[in-house]
């Protein structure tokens, strides 16, 4: 079972949170993440190691690369899911609020 306090500690670091959010978009290799974020590849690897230990992400081999993805059984999935869910819902709210003149 995932240790929840480990998961929270892992997510509390902003760069790790950013990594989880990127991986929520799609699975990626270390190099792709390093290209998208303002950190070095070794730093990304270190963050991924911690996220993996916390069961927030998981990895698998594709040829010579390791592909990282959100671990759907982890708590990071909940937060990332809710974050995207609200992002989309609130955009719909803004559209509704700016559209309707009376109700």
């Amino acid at each position, binding site marked *: 079972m995932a240790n*929840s306090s480990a998961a929270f500690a892992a997510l509390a670091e902003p760069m790790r949170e950013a990594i989880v959010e990127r991986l929520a978009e799609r699975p990626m290799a270390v190099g792709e993440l390093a290209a998208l974020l303002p950190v070095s590849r070794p730093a990304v690897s270190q963050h991924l190691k911690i996220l993996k230990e916390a069961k927030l992400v998981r990895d698998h081999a594709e040829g010579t690369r390791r592909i990282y993805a959100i671990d759907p059984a982890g708590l990071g999935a909940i*937060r990332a899911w809710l974050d995207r869910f609200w*992002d989309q819902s609130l955009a719909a709210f803004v559209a509704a609020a700016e559209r309707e003149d009376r*109700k």
Partner: protein
Amino acid sequence: MNVEAQRISPAPIRHSLRVKASQDKAFRIFTGGMGGWWMKSHSLNPAGQKDVLIEPRAGGRWYEVGNDGSENEWGRVLAWEAPDRVVLAWQLNAEWTYDPDFETTVEVRFTPDGDHTIVDFEHRDLERFGEKAEAVRGDYETGMDGGWRSLLDGYQSAAEAD
């Protein structure tokens, strides 16, 4: 930092929006018109969602009405301060099941800004999902809307519709 010695919470989900609408209207559409903007795919009801309702008072219900007329509880109103602020208890647990003993907090503040309104949204107390961590499984694949897959499909549709 000793992560074992203290409770560390995941960051709250925060969004700050600038809406071209009066404060009254922004509050009204958020609380009274939720069924009009909520994504219909995000429903607990197999028959599909007809409306989402919030009873306008502290202690009021926050619930969904399905196309078959049945109702599903989502939570309740913790604070109702129209048109400035509303605080809701989100009582869907990590398995997307209503649980009266579980709640996370959704707070929305509405601040006038000329002819616009600043809407500050926060969904917090997310660490409480962890208190039921043993219940957290791969339910996002089969949960309230099919999880990641349908969400991403929704994003794609929205993006391509523009």
